């Protein structure tokens, strides 16, 4: 019998289970198989802060959402079409988002009395009217997994751990995805434990086979999602932290500098420390410091000695680094500071995303202490932005704040591999030994960029002393002179302001360069804003999308551009920080659209704001 295959443009699948159920692995493996099928995709790993929360509890639920399709995918999708719930707690937390009529797959074997209680259900919701809205497939996945792997001789506990692969096998079948990349990966991952590898593969195959057999059931259909028509080229999937780390190394190579990373473990920025620690082949030196302050100070020391100092952290860690950032501003040393933002204030929501550190980035230091601030819009974008951060740091002898966020760091998307040989080098020239009769000053500036000389220890004749005390404009020696301080403060500001002329003009992503409404965003809100504006435009509304990479200084045309719209909405995952900065710089009536729930915007939320603005 030929199976009925329904062709879909796109689908959103959410895998949810206990932290120990391996949902992140399941999701990322489904992602890799989907990417190889040529679909466009966006992913959202949504996991708890606890490493191993008590089993079966709602706060221990870990989920992985993927939106994939034959069309261009910009967001992780508002509501899942398919929800896989491995236990009652996962169902409880995630059911409300499943779209009406959506497909719900549950492991009924995990719906024990104890697990139901832990999730707060008095009795099982399966088979109750609560389920009427959905197509429910309840299978005793636990039992079927044990059955499938029993010949491999694992203990009960170990055998049960294969149930994520059983489930993955079934979902792969459901969406006509290939198993080969996953079996290959399992063989490699468990190379030293062949029985475990074999059991996992058996579970994967069993889940897949189950799908084929159960196909006769009317509710259980296969879907076909085609390849997207992307720009021709070679692709791979990439996460934000991966692309960012590669970008830093690429930037270092273009500048002809060694990269020295000082970092301290913090969620969600640690992945950058891990990635760069695995790049010793490229000469990267990483230093896991005793604290956040030591991490940035070591990076500054490395820059003083002629390397490219880099430090990475998240909001609370960035707060600790601020005094040292001031030192790098005052001594005018290049430094890249990466902030992988998370929910705040204080410890806040370590594993949830937010973009609420914009004020901290632009304003957060003592004294008049301007630095360039740039941001990443998507995982793939991180590569280019990281290179740009390095370029600005070395060209202008300044710390640069690179704002990314937990969502971008962990999310994956297909990425067209860049032509590395086509990138333009920006080789750094350190100060040379002065000719006879010439004097050296560490604060001699380039007339155009206002960047100071970068003389490094080891070089004869350029010995000098610098520090955080104000320096004489000409000699670089300590100076407490009042006029000199005014001049140095003005110069530091002018140097950063001048960067506005060395960055691309602000472009309009979609729509017209003037008109009724501009939706202005920055960072990882790119996807939902882009989709919302596309839909609004296809409905005939005059809405445009502007997305700002350079947050300080702004591109030189931004004020003029924004003045061309009747109305401006600024969606942000904070309480209105870019909105305030835009109002301050341009005296425009930018209106906020804010969300701080730890989750990315839904397209609908932005679309609603567009509609109500246009209706006004």
């Amino acid at each position, binding site marked *: 019998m030929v199976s009925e295959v329904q062709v879909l443009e796109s689908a959103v699948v959410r895998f949810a289970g206990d932290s120990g159920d391996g949902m992140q692995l399941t999701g990322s493996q489904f992602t890799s198989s989907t990417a190889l099928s040529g679909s466009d995709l966006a992913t959202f790993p949504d996991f708890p802060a606890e490493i191993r929360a008590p089993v079966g509890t709602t706060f221990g639920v870990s989920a992985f959402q993927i939106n994939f399709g034959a069309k261009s995918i910009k967001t992780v999708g508002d509501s899942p079409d398919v929800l896989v719930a491995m236990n009652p707690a996962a169902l409880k937390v995630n059911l409300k988002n499943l779209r009406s009529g959506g497909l719900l797959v549950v492991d009924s074997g995990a719906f024990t009395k104890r697990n139901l209680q832990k999730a707060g259900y008095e009795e099982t919701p399966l088979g109750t009217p609560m389920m009427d809205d959905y197509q429910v497939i309840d299978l005793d996945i636990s039992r079927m997994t044990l059955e499938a792997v029993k010949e491999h001789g694992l203990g009960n506990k170990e055998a049960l751990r294969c149930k994520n692969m059983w489930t993955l096998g079934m979902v792969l079948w459901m969406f006509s995805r290939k198993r080969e990349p996953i079996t290959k990966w399992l063989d490699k991952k468990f190379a030293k434990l062949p029985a475990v590898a074999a059991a996992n593969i058996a579970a994967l195959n069993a889940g897949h086979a189950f799908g084929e057999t159960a196909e006769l059931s009317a509710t259980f259909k296969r879907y076909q999602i085609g390849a997207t028509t992307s720009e021709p080229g070679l692709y791979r999937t990439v996460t934000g932290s991966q692309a960012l780390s590669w970008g830093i190394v690429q930037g270092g*190579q273009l500048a002809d500098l060694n990269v020295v990373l000082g970092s301290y473990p913090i969620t969600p920025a640690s992945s950058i420390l891990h990635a760069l620690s695995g790049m010793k082949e*490229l000469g990267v030196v990483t*230093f896991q410091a005793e604290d956040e302050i030591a991490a940035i100070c070591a990076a500054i*020391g490395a820059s003083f000695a002629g390397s490219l100092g880099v430090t990475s952290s998240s909001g609370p860690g960035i707060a600790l680094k601020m005094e040292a950032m001031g030192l790098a501003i005052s001594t005018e040393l290049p430094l890249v500071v990466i902030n992988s933002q998370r929910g705040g204030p204080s410890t806040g929501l370590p594993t949830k995303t937010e973009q609420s550190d914009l004020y901290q980035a632009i304003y957060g230091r003592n004294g008049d202490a301007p630095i360039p601030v740039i941001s990443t819009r998507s995982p793939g974008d991180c590569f280019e932005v990281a290179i740009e951060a390095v370029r600005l740091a070395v060209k202008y002898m300044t710390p640069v704040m690179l704002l990314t966020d937990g969502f971008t760091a962990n999310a994956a998307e297909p990425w067209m*591999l*860049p032509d590395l040989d086509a990138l333009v080098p920006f080789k750094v020239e350190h100060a040379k030994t002065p000719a006879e009769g010439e004097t050296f000053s560490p604060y001699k500036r380039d007339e155009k960029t206002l960047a100071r000389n970068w003389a490094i220890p080891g070089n004869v004749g350029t*010995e000098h002393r610098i520090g*955080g005390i104000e320096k004489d404009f000409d000699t670089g020696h300590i100076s407490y002179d009042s006029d000199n301080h005014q001049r140095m403060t003005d110069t530091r500001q002018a140097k950063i302001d001048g960067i506005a002329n060395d960055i691309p003009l602000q472009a309009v992503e979609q729509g017209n360069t003037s008109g009724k409404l501009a939706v202005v965003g920055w960072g990882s809100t790119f996807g939902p804003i882009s989709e919302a504006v596309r839909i609004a435009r296809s409905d005939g509304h005059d809405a445009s999308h502007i997305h700002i990479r350079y947050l300080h200084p702004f591109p030189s045309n931004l004020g003029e551009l924004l003045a061309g719209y009747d109305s401006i909405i600024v969606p942000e995952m904070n309480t209105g920080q870019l909105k305030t900065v835009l109002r301050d710089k341009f005296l425009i009536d930018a209106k906020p659209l804010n969300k701080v729930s730890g989750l990315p915007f839904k397209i609908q939320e932005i679309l609603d704001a567009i509609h109500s603005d246009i209706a006004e």
Partner: protein
Amino acid sequence: MNEISALKGTPEKAPLTLKDFTSDQEVRWCPGCGDYAILKVMQRTLPELGVTRENTVFVSGIGCSSRFPYYMDTYGFHTIHGRAPAVATGVKLANPELDVWMITGDGDGLSIGGNHMLHVLRRDVDINILLFNNMIYGLTKGQFSPTSKPGTKSPSTPQGSVDPALNPIGFALGSGARFVARTVDTAIKHMPGVFKRAHGFKGASFVEILQNCIVYADQVWGDVTQKATAADKQLLLENGEKMLFGKEKDKGIRFDLASFSLQAVMIGENGITEDDILVHDESNLQMARMLAELGAEANEPMAMGVLYSEQAEYSYTEAVLAQVEAQKGKRTLKDMIYSGQTWEVK
């Protein structure tokens, strides 16, 4: 024009002198400050070590002592309060060939920067650390410091401080330091030898310098350093030599089993002979720990010189960079980016 550039191109460079290491900046410590003597000794000792100005870097934190780099005509970095160990670590990671000296004080190095001090010593980063201990915060005008004796009256402790004092040498040994020494600001003959030993040690070398703050804590080390009492209050350690002190070298240190501690004794009294006196062994960590405590009692001298020196096979930076070197060049960035699962869209 500086002398180095004047000498450029001459086939035989004259040896460097104190003057070559002296910057053109006016020294701004209070008249009579112990820092002057330390600065002079450093400027005099570096030429004797045969080092170059361009390969020498002084890194400091904040405080009176931390102004030191401005007066040395080498590379220098006056950083922020307490963080010099971290900055110095970064300098070494970027260029392990540099000769890095770190200058700090009791407040900078043991209070606000205590954590960094612990870790730079634990890691054994190859730098030379000079901690000027004057038992007071000088630059902020006289508050008590972590090494101040309990009862120290200061603007922030008008009734006297209640905090117990920290022993820097004990702290360093407890942190895992492999080279620990002590000297005195006025001991201009003793200090160069200590500096040379610290410089010659591969790894983190920690030197406590008893330093007098003439304004806020004058003579806190008086009984140890003054001519009249110095011989009785200083035990000048020499590796392999007996621990004798006193003007006539008639006093010594022995190990007392009953109290499990070192004891200052008079040779010839109570049946004690020279055979009872301990021989200094720099490689003995337990002995160093006991020597660190010496001086707490009125009749005891403070140990001076190298208390402990036990070089590891590799310093921290050598080990870190060896890992990098072992991998370097095995893959290119392109290899990494283009590896893994890729697909082509046509």
